[in-house]
Structures are given as structure tokens and as C-alpha cells.
């Protein structure tokens, strides 16, 4: 009776609580919001992102566990969440590792991981300027090649 057991177990976990816990969680969330705003305004060097993400994670966990009752929904429900979070992190980690360890000129121009200038912002042009001719804006990167190229036609 494996299946029945699983469902039965699930139903058992659904015992009814008072509404107090919701108010508590709500208060906690508001406080944390306040904290994150304050710390955010301070613009702590290096740690700003870490702090903000930490607080956000705590808030998210509260919502998941109590508002969404993940604390009652056991088994597969939790596994689903855990796996999806894991994949999100993986999806974030590998591309960032890629940018960090790439051949520098292969990174987006103008970024602090590249030595090439971003044409759209050379002499305070607006970003819109780069839009003419789409990718052709990149043509100007031939600077290193000793200026052997004609100016990109899209410039005209």
C-alpha cells in the first residue's frame, strides 16, 4: 500500500495551526525588509551584495516554509524545490566562472574583465548611437590591427 501510505502521510502532516504564526512571519518579513533597505543604503563595500542576498534568502525561506507550508509538505515537494534551486545556482555559477576565466579580450568590451573600450560610450555618446547597424558597431574594434580597416560603413 505504498502509495496510499505516501498520501496518508502527507494528509497527516497537514495538522491545523493557529493563525499566529502567519502574523509572526509577516512581522519578521517587514523587519528584514527594513534591515535590507538600511544596509543597502549604507552601500557597504564588498559585502553589500552578500548581505542583501543573505537577507533575501532568509525572507524567501520564511515564505516557502510557512506561507507555502513547505514545513508541512514533506517528501517529494521539498525535493522538487531543492533540485530547482540547485539547478538555478549551477546555471548561475558556470557562466560566471566562464567570464572570470576567459581570454580577456573575449569578454564584453568596456567590462572590467576586458581591455577593449565600448564604442557606444567612447566620447559620451548615448547608448542609442550603437544601435545604428546593430552588431556593426563592433567594427571599430579593429583599432589593434593598426587601423588597416576602412571605417565601418554603418558609421556613415
Amino acid at each position: 500500500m505504498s502509495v496510499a501510505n505516501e498520501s496518508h502521510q502527507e494528509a497527516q502532516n497537514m495538522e491545523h495551526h493557529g493563525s499566529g504564526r502567519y502574523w509572526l512571519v509577516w512581522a519578521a518579513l517587514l523587519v528584514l525588509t527594513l534591515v535590507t533597505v538600511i544596509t543597502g543604503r549604507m552601500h557597504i563595500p564588498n559585502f553589500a551584495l552578500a548581505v542583501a542576498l543573505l537577507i533575501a534568502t532568509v525572507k524567501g525561506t520564511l515564505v516557502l516554509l510557512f506561507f507555502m507550508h513547505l514545513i508541512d509538505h514533506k517528501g517529494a515537494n521539498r525535493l522538487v524545490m531543492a533540485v530547482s534551486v540547485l539547478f538555478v545556482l549551477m546555471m548561475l555559477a558556470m557562466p560566471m566562472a566562464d567570464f572570470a576565466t576567459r581570454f580577456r579580450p573575449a569578454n564584453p568590451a568596456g567590462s572590467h574583465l576586458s581591455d577593449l573600450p565600448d564604442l557606444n560610450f567612447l566620447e559620451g555618446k548615448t547608448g542609442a548611437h550603437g544601435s545604428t547597424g546593430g552588431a556593426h558597431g563592433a567594427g571599430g574594434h579593429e583599432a589593434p590591427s593598426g587601423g588597416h580597416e576602412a571605417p565601418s560603413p554603418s558609421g556613415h
Partner: protein
Amino acid sequence: MSSSAHTAVATPGVPRLAQHFASLEVQNHAARLGMWLFLSTEILLFAGLFVCYGCYRYLFPEAFAAASRHLDLTMGTVNTVVLITSSLTAALAVHYAKEGKSNLVALMFGLTIAMACAFLVIKGFEYSHKFEEGALPGPYYRMQAVQLPGVPLYFTIYFLATGLHAFHVIIGMSVLVWLMIKAIRERNFGPNNYTAVELGSMYWHLVDLVWIFLFPLLYLI
């Protein structure tokens, strides 16, 4: 979710049991698991944008910092509070559904929907402000104040992420409206019949959850 459809009600207090389910327990179990799976797809849907954000922020840190200063922090904070509170009322709705107090369920959902509207209105003001400033995605970026590589990307991501989120807010609202009408019309929620309410509010909490992460990333750093 069609799962919520399975609990369309025949006799008061007890939802109809679809013929292919062994028992009500199984039916609710299935509905919940289905909902969690669906929510995980939503998370991975937003993940794509979070990845873009993460990578480009990593590439253009100062640009992103400078750009985020140009968002209206007060409006953002107010929106956060509004959304969190709407989440509370949604949670309470489930609570009252379990206790069979259909009026209170309707009321709570009513409040949630009202706050959702408030959220959208505030967002609307923010958007219009951005349009005036010219802080727009990619080629439409016109804001002379900040001229750094990566800033147009920031606003591309800002509009995509908040736009997608707003879209989910609207979907969530329509679900809640449906549930509210259900609560008023049928007024037969109870300890054995609250799955629909629970799933609906779970969706709303997800909308809240996404915003909890969007808010600091976009406004604070």
C-alpha cells in the same frame, strides 16, 4: 492548474472525488505535488533572467551600481511591503478556508487583490518615470546622467524582470478573483476542502518570493 479543478465541489464541505483517484487524500496529494512542480517551472523561468543579471552585474559592477541608484527606492520599498502584506492575507485565507469561514476567505482574497492592484499602480508610476528619464532598454537608452557601458543592459534586465513579474501578478490576481467568487458563491470550504485555496495562495506566494529577490538585486545594489 487543472489540479485545482478536481476540487470543484458537489456536496458541501467535501470536494468531488475524481473517478480515477483512489481516495481524497491521494487526490490532494497529487494536486499539491503538481502545484509544487509547476512552481518549480516558474522558478526556472525567472532563473534565466537572474542568470543574465548575475553575469552582467559581474561584468559591469559599477555600471549596475550607478544604474540602481536611479531607481526610486521609496516606491520599491513600499511595493515590497505591499506585496509581503498581500502574501500574509493570502496565507490567512488558507487558514480560514480550513476553518470553513468562507466570508473571511473572500475578504482576505479581496484584500490581497486590492494590494496587488496597488502594487501594479505603483509599478506603473515607476515605469512612466523611467520613460521620462529615458532610462530605457538597450538602444532606447537616453539618460545623459549616467553614461557607462552596461547601464543600458541593466535597464533591459530591469524591464524584462519586472515586466515578467508584473505579468505573473496579473495571472495571480485572476486566479485569486476566481477563488474569491468561489468562496462567495459556494461558501463550502472546510477542513476537507481547501486545496483549491491553498494552491491559489501558493501561486501568489511565489509571486511574492520572486519579488523578495528582485527587490534588493535591482534597487539596493
